[in-house]
């Protein structure tokens, strides 16, 4: 009896890091390669890598030198991808993050939410665009939870996501 193909089982990747900012690129490249290997024939690796990059980029400044945890789950049978990034955060940081996320999620259309973020984000300082970018470009839903002094941002969606469509019929 042969082993079932690895692509029919949920596949997990767990990383615990104390990364300075410069390692974010390496993590993104690794995640992209990992997804390409985990799900050959699917086309989600670049979107997942983008999402991991943006979520890690949000987490590192708040981690204060403590652990940042990344968990990635790819489930071909359930047609699901799940990314969880957790880091230490204060109550104030959690509430601020939740407020921003609630505002993004209030808009049912991820593109409209992204376009609004583009118009409102401050142009000369960082921040304000990454979460909306993940929701539209990576086609992942977003939520946040808090346990003790750590927050976890969860991004999830279909492994076999439909083509992105925008007004005018352009799609990729």
């Amino acid at each position: 009896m042969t082993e079932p193909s690895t692509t029919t089982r949920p596949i997990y990747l767990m990383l615990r890091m104390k990364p300075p900012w410069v390692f974010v690129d390496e993590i993104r490249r690794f995640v992209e390669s990992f997804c390409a290997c985990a799900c050959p024939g699917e086309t989600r690796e670049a979107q997942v890598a983008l999402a991991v990059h943006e979520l890690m980029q949000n987490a590192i400044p708040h981690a204060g030198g403590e652990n940042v945890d990344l968990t990635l789950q790819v489930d071909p049978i359930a047609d699901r991808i799940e990314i969880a990034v957790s880091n230490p955060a204060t109550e104030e940081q959690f509430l601020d993050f939740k407020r921003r996320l609630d505002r993004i999620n209030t808009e049912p259309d991820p593109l409209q939410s992204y376009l609004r973020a583009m118009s409102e984000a401050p142009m000369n300082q960082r921040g304000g665009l990454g979460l909306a970018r993940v929701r539209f470009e990576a086609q992942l839903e977003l939520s946040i939870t808090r346990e003790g002094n750590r927050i976890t941002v969860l991004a999830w969606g279909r492994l076999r996501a439909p083509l992105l469509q925008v007004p005018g019929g352009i799609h990729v």
Partner: protein
Amino acid sequence: MSSPSLPGARTPIIQVSEEKYSASLHVEPLGTRVHFRGTISTVNPAGVLNPFVDQVHEHLLKAGAKDVRVDFTELEFCNSSGFKSFIYWIQKIQAAGDKQYRLRFISSPARKWQRTSLLALSCYSPNAVEIG
């Protein structure tokens, strides 16, 4: 840091670089091309890219350009903070009145993130953005 150079020289007219990325403006027979290379993923790339965009925009206004090619073929990645510099650029174009020009992006099929990012930019400003 950006460093203007002499007009007519083979070197870029305007350029900027950091450890992981660079951007440069070239005047070529096909027209003006702005070339981005590397990985834009620093904490606040706007501090480097926005002044570059300012210089490029002024150059294009003075030249009366109708369009400019924005070459992404060697841009491995751009984080959301860097992406905002392209929004900043579009906002400057939108404010240019009758001197507006178009950004004609040249993307790399191998860099799949570019398709979604440029699609979003084209939705943000259909008049200023064209995807090649």
